[in-house]
C-alpha cells in the first residue's frame, strides 16, 4: 500500500479529533469541481452534459477556498471537468498546499506536460491521472484514440520532475482481470506512487448505461484482478476498501464522506447523485435526508453502487474506529495480502 505516512497520520488524527468531538458525520475528502468543461467526452461520465453558458463558467479561487474552509476535510480532490483547463489552477493548488491540504488533482493528462511548470512538487500535491486500462481499453473508455499515448509520457515527465503521481481507474462491465493486472504492472513501471481503482457507477446522465457493474460482477472482477497481488503493486487507497470490492467486507455507504462543491452549490446527497443543492456545507449536512441513501435504505439508485466516494470513507472510518479494523488494515499493509 502506498499512502504516504504523513498523509495517513493527518487522516488518522483528523478522524480521532472528530471522534473526540463526538461528530456523527464528518467529511474525509472534498470533491471540488471548479469547472465542468473537459477536453474529453467519455461515455462513462455524466459530468459534462450542460448548456454552453454553464460549461464556460469557472468557480473563483476565493469561492473554492471558502468551500475548503467550510468543509474542513483534510483531503481535497479536484475533478471536474478537466482541472488543468481551469485558468487559476496554479493559484488554487498553491493556496491549498499552503493550507496543508492533501490535493489530488484529477486529470486526463492531455495538458499535463505543458502545464507542469505551473506547479511545484510537494508532499501535499498529487496528480491523479485518469487511466482506465492499457492503451486499447483506455482509449475506448475515453472515446478517443491516442489519449493513452499522451498520458504515459506526461506521467513519466511528472515523476521525473519529482511530483507525486497516482492513477485512478474506473472499471466497467467487460473489463478483463488479466489485462488489468498487466495494466498495474505497466503503471508501476512508469514509477507512479500508487493506483486507485473503483467500479463505475451508472450516472443517469451518462450516455453509456449498459456497461456499469452490478455488485456480484464487481466482486468477481475485483477478486480475480486483485488475487495474489504482486508485491510491486501499490494502491493509493484503503486496503479495506479493496477487500470490500472483492466481497470480503460488507460496508454501508457514507454518502457525506466525499461532499461535492461546484458552481451550483453543495450537491445532495453525494458525488454521484444529483438530487439538489444546498447553499452551505452546514445546510447540506443538516438538511439532507441521509437515511434515504445507501444499500440499507432500499434506495434503488444505491443498490449496486460500490464506488469509492461512498465506501472508501466507510473503510477509513472502520480502520480508525475499531481495534479490529486497525489491526486488519495494518496486517494487509504489512503483508500486502488482500
Amino acid at each position, binding site marked *: 500500500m502506498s499512502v504516504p505516512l504523513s498523509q495517513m497520520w493527518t487522516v488518522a488524527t483528523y478522524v480521532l479529533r472528530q471522534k473526540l468531538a463526538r461528530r456523527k458525520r464528518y467529511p474525509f475528502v472534498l470533491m471540488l469541481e471548479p469547472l465542468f468543461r473537459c477536453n474529453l467526452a467519455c461515455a462513462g461520465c455524466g459530468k459534462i452534459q450542460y448548456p454552453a*453558458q*454553464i460549461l464556460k463558467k469557472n468557480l473563483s479561487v476565493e469561492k473554492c477556498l471558502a468551500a475548503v474552509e467550510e468543509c474542513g476535510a483534510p483531503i481535497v480532490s479536484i475533478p471536474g471537468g478537466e482541472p488543468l483547463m481551469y485558468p487559476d489552477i496554479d493559484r488554487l493548488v498553491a493556496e491549498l498546499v499552503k493550507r496543508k491540504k492533501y490535493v489530488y488533482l484529477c486529470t486526463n493528462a492531455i495538458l499535463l506536460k505543458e502545464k507542469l511548470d505551473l506547479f511545484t512538487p510537494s508532499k501535499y500535491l498529487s496528480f491523479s491521472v485518469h487511466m482506465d486500462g492499457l492503451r486499447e481499453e483506455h482509449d475506448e473508455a475515453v472515446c478517443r484514440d491516442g489519449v493513452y499515448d499522451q498520458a504515459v509520457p506526461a506521467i513519466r515527465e511528472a515523476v521525473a520532475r519529482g511530483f507525486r503521481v497516482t492513477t485512478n481507474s474506473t472499471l466497467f462491465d467487460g473489463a478483463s482481470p488479466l489485462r488489468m493486472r498487466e495494466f498495474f504492472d505497466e503503471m508501476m513501471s512508469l514509477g507512479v506512487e500508487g493506483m486507485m481503482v473503483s467500479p463505475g457507477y451508472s450516472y443517469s446522465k451518462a450516455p*453509456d448505461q*449498459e456497461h456499469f457493474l452490478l455488485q456480484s460482477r464487481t466482486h468477481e472482477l475485483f477478486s480475480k484482478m486483485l488475487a495474489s497481488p504482486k508485491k510491486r503493486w501499490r494502491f493509493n487507497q484503503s486496503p479495506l476498501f479493496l477487500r470490500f470490492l472483492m466481497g470480503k467486507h460488507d460496508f454501508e455507504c457514507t454518502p457525506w464522506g466525499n461532499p461535492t462543491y461546484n458552481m*451550483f*452549490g453543495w450537491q445532495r446527497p453525494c458525488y454521484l447523485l444529483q438530487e439538489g443543492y444546498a447553499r452551505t456545507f452546514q445546510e447540506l449536512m443538516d438538511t439532507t435526508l441521509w437515511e434515504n441513501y445507501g444499500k440499507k435504505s432500499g434506495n434503488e439508485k444505491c443498490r449496486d453502487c460500490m464506488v469509492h466516494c461512498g465506501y472508501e470513507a466507510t473503510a477509513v472510518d472502520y480502520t480508525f474506529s475499531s481495534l479490529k479494523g486497525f489491526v486488519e488494515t495494518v496486517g494487509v499493509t504489512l503483508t500486502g495480502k488482500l
Partner: protein
Amino acid sequence: MSLEGWVPDVGQYLTLEEVVEFAFDYRGNTTIVKADGTEFVGYIFNRNTYGPEPFIEYFDESGEGPFTLRYSELANVKFTGKDTAAGNSWKAWLERKEREKAERVPAQVVPDPDPHRG
C-alpha cells in the same frame, strides 16, 4: 426519451411542481415563463421545496446567476434548449470505431471466376 421541445400543459393533470421536477432533471436550457407572462431563457439547476416559499435556482442564458424565482412567480417551463444528455455517444463511438477499422483493412482481391472473358 428526451423532453427537448416539450411545452407542458400545466393544469389539472400536470402540476407546476411536476414540471419543475422535470426541468431540474433536464440538461438543457429552458424557457421560464413567469406568472406575469414574461419569458426568458435559463438553465434550472436546483429547486427547493423545503421552506415556506418554494423556489427554483437558475443561471440565465449568458451564464449570469445564480438567480432565484419563487414558485408563486412561475407559470410554466418550456423545454426549448438542446438536451445535452440526449443520445448515446458510447454506441455512436463504438460504431464509428468499427467503421474506421473496417476502412483500414485493405479491400480483398477476389479471384476473377472467369479470367478469359473479354
